[in-house]
């Protein structure tokens, strides 16, 4: 699964993207955040406030309870501040 990170999520993890094999226990976007936060202290720092994290599956917003099965690309990022 291709994961892409932006803004302070990217800075805290220390990379903009990576390929990861996810365990079957990761079903929803919320599961993914929880799983990633256990991968090391940089991930823990990025995801310490999981409710703040926004998730996009194949470049479309999803809620934390939604499944991520079949995704080609998942984006994880802070609340948006454009405009």
């Amino acid at each position, binding site marked *: 699964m291709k994961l*892409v990170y*932006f*803004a*302070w999520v990217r800075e805290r993890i220390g990379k903009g993207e990576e390929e990861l094999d996810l365990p079957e226990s990761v079903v929803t976007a919320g599961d993914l955040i929880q799983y990633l936060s256990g991968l090391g202290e940089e991930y823990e720092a990025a995801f310490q406030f999981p409710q703040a994290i926004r998730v*996009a599956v194949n*470049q*479309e*917003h999803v809620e934390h309870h939604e499944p991520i099965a079949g995704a080609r690309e998942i*984006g994880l*990022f*802070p*609340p*948006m*501040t*454009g*405009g």
Partner: protein
Amino acid sequence: MAAAPSIRVQREDFDATAETAALTAGRQDIGAVVSFVGLCRDEAGTLSALELEHYPGMAEAEMRRIAGIAIERFGLLCLTAIHRYGKIAPGENIVLVIAAAPHRQAAFDGAAFMMDYLKTSAPFWKKEHRRDGSAGDWVSAKDADTRALDKWR
């Protein structure tokens, strides 16, 4: 007859006057054009630049999705939205929205709707660069921007 929205995400500046002329060229059904330009503030002289990061592909797609909703909901005849990325100095342009409609209220509402949703759901993030050289923060999302959506529900 509504034209497809013109959506661009680009590093370079834009010319609001030229974009407005392009939007209305050759049309006689437009009675109202509302344009909004968002600029980089210097925050009382403390800011040297804003760094705009975006999610390539999704930023355009999300702007196009919001534009489609705005055209449908307010009966816009056309809509242009341009958002810049990269390092932007105080006084420079960040974002442009132009909405055209037969009458003014639809053009005002369409432009405001586009901006309100763009701010909270198009994937852009601002990081501050400070004039004193200290490390700048990422701009925090504002509750007021989220509350601004309530009036459209």
